[in-house]
């Protein structure tokens, strides 16, 4: 799992986003969150199919509270799409692949 996604942490978050050419979709998740686990394979698939066009970063909120707090994440899964380092879209809650793509489409 997660071969096509990158792991984000409090330590590498700013650096990774600053250095990204493509939009970055950050998945705020945790091990104990059922819906997060459900969308993990979907996100991996989207990352694989959009290689080069979209980077998907996974941030474990359990270990990276600083970044989670900075973006006021209060529910997981939360997906935030960053373009040029700025958040442009935010999706809360687990959704199927078609719906995720549809909601992300205007920003890609």
């Amino acid at each position, binding site marked *: 799992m997660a071969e096509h996604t990158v792991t984000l942490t409090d330590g590498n978050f700013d650096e990774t986003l600053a250095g990204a050419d493509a939009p970055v979709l950050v998945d705020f998740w945790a091990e104990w969150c*059922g*819906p997060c686990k459900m969308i993990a394979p979907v996100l991996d698939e989207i990352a694989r199919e959009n290689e080069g066009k979209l980077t998907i970063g996974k941030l474990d909120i359990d270990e990276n509270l600083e970044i989670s707090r900075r973006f006021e994440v209060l529910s*997981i*899964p939360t997906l935030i799409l960053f373009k040029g380092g700025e958040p442009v879209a935010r999706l809360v*809650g*687990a959704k*199927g692949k*078609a719906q995720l793509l549809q909601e992300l489409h205007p920003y890609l």
Partner: protein
Amino acid sequence: MTSAIPSGDGVRDVVIIGSGPAGLTAAIYTARANLKPLVIEGEPSSNSDQPGGQLMLTTEVENFPGFPDGIMGPDLMAAFKAQAARFGAEFVTAKASEVVFDERPFRVHTSDGGEVSARSVIVATGARSLMLGLESERRLLGYGVSTCATCDGFFHRDYEVGVVGGGDSAIEEALFLAKFATKVHLIHRRKELRASRIMQDRALAHPKLEFIWDTVVSDLVGDKTLEAAVLKDVNTGTERTLPLHGLFVAIGHVPNTDIFKTSLDSDENGYLRTVGHGTYTNIEGVFACGDVQDHVYRQAITAAGSGCMAAIDCERWLEAVAH
């Protein structure tokens, strides 16, 4: 993981819609009867309408027989699925979006544009959480308002939260949230709980749980994130504001029957009607099991039991029409 209906799929003996305890038990039984069931398991969601069903949003299940030390809801459902897969059940990760029951074979369409034909269909779509129905609730969902305590409890460590409801799920959520929150306000529209005795005793004895009886949530306050709930006393009509960092809604369920409205008979609350003690619906060859047809018991074990009944009813019906 299969995610779409295989193209060129022929007419199936049985398609099962839903993958909670009812759907997966029906899958185990029909797979063992060599009917090669296709399970349309649903799509990820945070509102209990998803692959694995309502148990995917729970933690410890303490009342499922066979697990004296309890088992985590998602682990239990993973085991159900593995058992069905072992006997040849196949899975599609999509939502059934339309059913055609007035022609034979029946057809089931999925949200990803797939279509499958089947001689029989077992409906096990379950129920999803009811929401309060407030505009402010829609706006703040995910920003302090939640339907999943196990997902979001973590974010309320050292804050005060509220739970709306008075049944087992409300109490379960409240007890879970008490691990994180400084105080959990249980807001219930009646003066007594609907929850089972054991849950009530635990809740009433818990030092962090505070009960607000005869009260409903009439509005939610918060610009970006939830700041407070407006509570209304149902007897006096008096309103007051309670500052809250999080609010968890557990006021009951509504059956997932939208796609069956024009074809299957349902009762006044939308639950599917089955015939006598069996799982037959008004359409021969379509069977219903689990919470979608049961608003009385609504347990994992009763759902599983009725899934088994549906599988047996279905198998016998297929045999009878084949001869």
